Each structure stands twice: as structure tokens, then as C-alpha cells.
């Protein structure tokens, strides 16, 4: 009996030692949290990253959707924050999380998250039904003077929404009312829930030929949509973009960040991802940790500018 026990103890110890030798990240399953309903770009790309990670490292890697409803990405972000800072839970966040998060008192601070890398710029657009009677911002402005125009967006605190309101202010019109939605797609327009929606190109892809795209929100026009100008160009506001990146909690070891960055970059440069870019108008790239941090600072300033416009200078 005693011999058996000693043998058992020895084998467990050896296993343990063997384990010790491979004590590098990732040692356990990794969860990527996407704080939006499934199907959108960040979801697709993050799933690609997770799949590549599973293949490259052998540990199970999965994507979990945690939509926050009218609360946007913050509940999901808080979930990442609450997890241990060891790379087992990684967040796939939009610009709003590091920039707007600290301002709304949910428990996110300026330094709560470290960007692993920014990899996606959403092709955010303003769209309306084909029979709405206006097809660019100027016409919308004119139409809105005498008619009720209702805006649908993903949340008042998010940057594209702010950009839209600031643009409206600059162009001298007002939306009669607005609502936050969990999902804005062809159905939202066809079912009549909103007149103008502030959404990503992928979600309205199926009905692209039957709707009017009024403007796109970003630094440059989208190749796919000819004749559509950026919101910045049409209204005079700055060109703040909505981007998405991988984030880990403050305190995560550098090797975790590096491993994730490696896989992330490889994923973005892959044929699959680049094809996504060509087909959909999204911009897929990889900006490493330092570049991302600088970008966050710059974008913070742009965001403050927009907020000032909305507040009435």
C-alpha cells in the first residue's frame, strides 16, 4: 500500500514538474469577450483570432458575446476587468471603452486596459431607406427642417453617434427623436423603427442596393461606396473613426501581450481577413501596442471636440 502511495505521489510530482517546464502563456483556456451581439465585424475577426490561437497553442479559445443592450460594450468590458490579469480573458473593444468608459463612472479608469493592438476600423455609415427623399447630408438637413427625422444608433455615448449629433448641430438641423438599439440592420429601416440609422456597412449589406447611404464616418471614403462622402467632409466635424482592438487588463504580463499580438497580427494579415476588408469596406490592419496607445490619446482629444460641439460650444 505504502509503495503504491509513494509511486502515485512521485508520478503526480513528475507530472507537475513537466507542467512547470511549459509554464508559458497560455496555460489554460482563453476567452475572448465581444460585448456585442454576434455577427458583426469585430465578432468575425475575433473568432478568427480565437481559432488561430487554438490552432497555434492547442488550448481551447472561444469567443463569448456579451451584448449590453442599451448599455453598449460596458457590461462586457467590466466582465473582462473583473477577470484575473493573466490573459485568460481578453476583450475585443471599440474605441468607446478606453475613451468614454472612464468618464461615465462604471469602474473603468483611463489605465484599466492595455491595448494589445487595434485591428479594425468599422465602415460606419449613415443610411436611410431608398424612398426617404434624401441621399446625402445636405439633403437630409433640408428635409429635417420641416419633417420629423428619427435616428437609430447603438448608444448615445458611442463615438459615431456623437459624430452624427455634432454633424447635425454643425449643419443646423435636429433629429426629432432618437433611440438606442441592440441591432441596426435592413430590418430596422424596412420595419420603420427609424428613418436614419447609424450602423456598419456589413449589417446593411443585404439591402445595399435599396437604401441610401448618406455618409460614412471615418478618415476616407469607402471604395465600395462611390458617390458617398465622409461625414467629416460634408459637415465640417473632425474625422474620428470607430475602431476595434484587443485589450487586456492592466497588470497583464508583457509576454501575454506579445503572444496575443503575434497571433493577432498574423490573423489580420491572413488572406481571409484581407478578403473581408476587400468585400466589406472595413479596414483590417494591425497597430501594435505603442501605436495604439498613441492613437487612443489623439482620439480622446477628437472625442472631446465632438462633445463640445454637441453641448453648444
Amino acid at each position, binding site marked *: 500500500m505504502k509503495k503504491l502511495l509513494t509511486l502515485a505521489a512521485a508520478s503526480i*510530482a513528475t507530472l507537475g514538474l513537466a507542467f*512547470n517546464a511549459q*509554464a508559458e502563456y497560455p496555460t489554460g*483556456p482563453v476567452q475572448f469577450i465581444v460585448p456585442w451581439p454576434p455577427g458583426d465585424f469585430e465578432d468575425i475577426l475575433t473568432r478568427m483570432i480565437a481559432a488561430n490561437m487554438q490552432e497555434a497553442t492547442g488550448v481551447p479559445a472561444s469567443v463569448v458575446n456579451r451584448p449590453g443592450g442599451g448599455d453598449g460594450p460596458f457590461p462586457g468590458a467590466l466582465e473582462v476587468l473583473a477577470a484575473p490579469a493573466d490573459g485568460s480573458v481578453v476583450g475585443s473593444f471599440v474605441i468607446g471603452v478606453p475613451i468614454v468608459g472612464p468618464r461615465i463612472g462604471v469602474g473603468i479608469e483611463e489605465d484599466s486596459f492595455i491595448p494589445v493592438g487595434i485591428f479594425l476600423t468599422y465602415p460606419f455609415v449613415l443610411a436611410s431607406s431608398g424612398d426617404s427623399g434624401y441621399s446625402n447630408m445636405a439633403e437630409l438637413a433640408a428635409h429635417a427642417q420641416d419633417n420629423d427625422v428619427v435616428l437609430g444608433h447603438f448608444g448615445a455615448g458611442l463615438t459615431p453617434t456623437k459624430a452624427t449629433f455634432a454633424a447635425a448641430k454643425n449643419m443646423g438641423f435636429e433629429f426629432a*427623436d432618437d433611440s438606442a438599439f441592440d441591432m441596426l440592420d435592413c430590418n430596422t429601416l424596412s420595419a420603420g423603427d427609424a428613418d436614419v440609422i447609424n450602423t456598419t456597412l456589413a449589417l446593411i449589406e443585404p439591402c445595399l442596393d435599396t437604401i441610401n447611404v448618406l455618409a460614412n464616418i471615418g478618415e476616407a471614403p469607402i471604395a465600395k461606396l462611390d458617390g458617398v462622402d465622409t461625414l467629416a467632409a460634408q459637415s465640417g466635424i473632425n474625422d474620428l473613426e470607430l475602431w476595434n482592438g484587443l485589450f487586456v487588463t492592466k497588470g497583464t504580463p508583457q509576454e501575454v501581450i506579445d503572444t496575443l499580438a503575434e497571433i493577432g497580427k498574423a490573423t489580420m494579415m491572413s488572406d481571409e481577413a484581407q478578403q473581408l476588408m476587400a468585400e466589406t469596406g472595413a479596414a483590417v490592419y494591425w497597430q501594435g501596442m505603442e501605436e495604439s496607445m498613441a492613437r487612443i490619446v489623439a482620439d480622446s482629444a477628437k472625442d472631446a471636440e465632438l462633445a463640445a460641439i454637441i453641448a453648444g460650444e
Partner: protein
Amino acid sequence: MTDFRSTTAVSQPDLRSTSADVALQSTPVGKGFKSSIPRERRFNVADLFKFSRGRGDLLFSALFLAAALFVALSFFGESGWADRDLPQRRLGKMLKQPWVGPVIAVMILLPAALGNFALSLRRARLDRRKHRPNKTRYEVVQWLRAVEFVAYFIVYTRSIELIGYLFATIIFAVLMVFRLGYRSWRWLGITIAVSFVSVLFFRTMLQIKTPVNIWLYNQLPDGLERFMKVYF
């Protein structure tokens, strides 16, 4: 749907009596209708869903009403009513405000709780008039008996942080089974086996998340510590 039949033999409503022939009552369908089925073999399907207020109903209905009143009264402070933005020309601007959801919920909850309490009171008075015994005290004792097990559950969940999922589960299962009276070696064996298999299934195979920072595992040498933390 209504799952007051959802439990096991423990609380068998009288309809489920073994003398099936006489068990089910019947009520006359209406005057002027002559049924050809002999009286004692008729039954009304609605009887299958007969609900009668049992012991403790009045007490719980009262408590429920109290809770509903509490919720309704806190409405003014807790639901965002204080920040209301009224009046609005567009109805929609009102409906978007945070207090609308609670208003709807309270409008359903409060009248229903009141009505339910009234019915419960009426039944209690009827019982008192017919001199049926009031067994509320017995019922409350049954409720308190459950509190013991709730406490065990909380202790179990807390202990996982201390001694890890594997040991906590096996020890908890054995202690509980012992407490419930299964005290033979055979039961001990079965319990340990089943709990071990469950731990294997949930933690080792499916890798469900359990608390990460476990005191007992922290005391182990590094390699073993990691192994235990990942797989158990």
C-alpha cells in the same frame, strides 16, 4: 406551465390518490343537461388543475404584498423617477425614460399582490369559520428546515475558494449524504464515486470556471499547484 405538479411523491395532491375510481370529483355541467355517465365516474378536466390555498398561504401572500409595497414605494427614489424629464410633447421621449419599465412592472405586481392577498384572506377566514386547523406554524417550520440546507450550499460555495473544487465537492457531498441519513459504507462509496466523476466531467473535461485563487493549491509546490488549478 403551471408546475405545481412538478414535484415528486413528497407532496401528492389528493387527486393523485390510489383509488383512482373515486378520486376525481365532478361538477354538474349545467342545468338541463342530462349526462349518461354515472355520477361517480364523471370528472371535470378542470379538476386536474384544482388549486387550493394550503398552509402558509396567507403568511406568504402577506409577505409578498409587503415586498410589493416596498418596491412600489421605493419607486420614487430608485427607478430614475427623480431624474424624470416631463412633460414631453412626443410620447416617445417619455417612454424612453428609465422609470417606464418599473412603472409597468409595478402596475402589474401591486394590484395582483393585493388581489391575491385579499383572496388568501378570504380563504383563511373561511377556514377559520369551518374550524379547519391553522397549520401555519408547521409550514414555517418546514421553511426554516430548508434554511439549513441553504446555509450548507453557501458554505460549500465559499469553501471552494479555500480547498478547491475537487475536495470541496467530495467533502460536501459526503457530509450532506451523511446528514441526510445514508450512513453505510456502500453509500459513502457511491457518493465519492459520483462526486469524483462529476468533478472530472465539469472541471477537467468541460473546464468550467471555478474560483482561481485557491488557498490550498497555493500551498502546493509550483508544478503541482498549476496542475491542480487547471484540471481540478
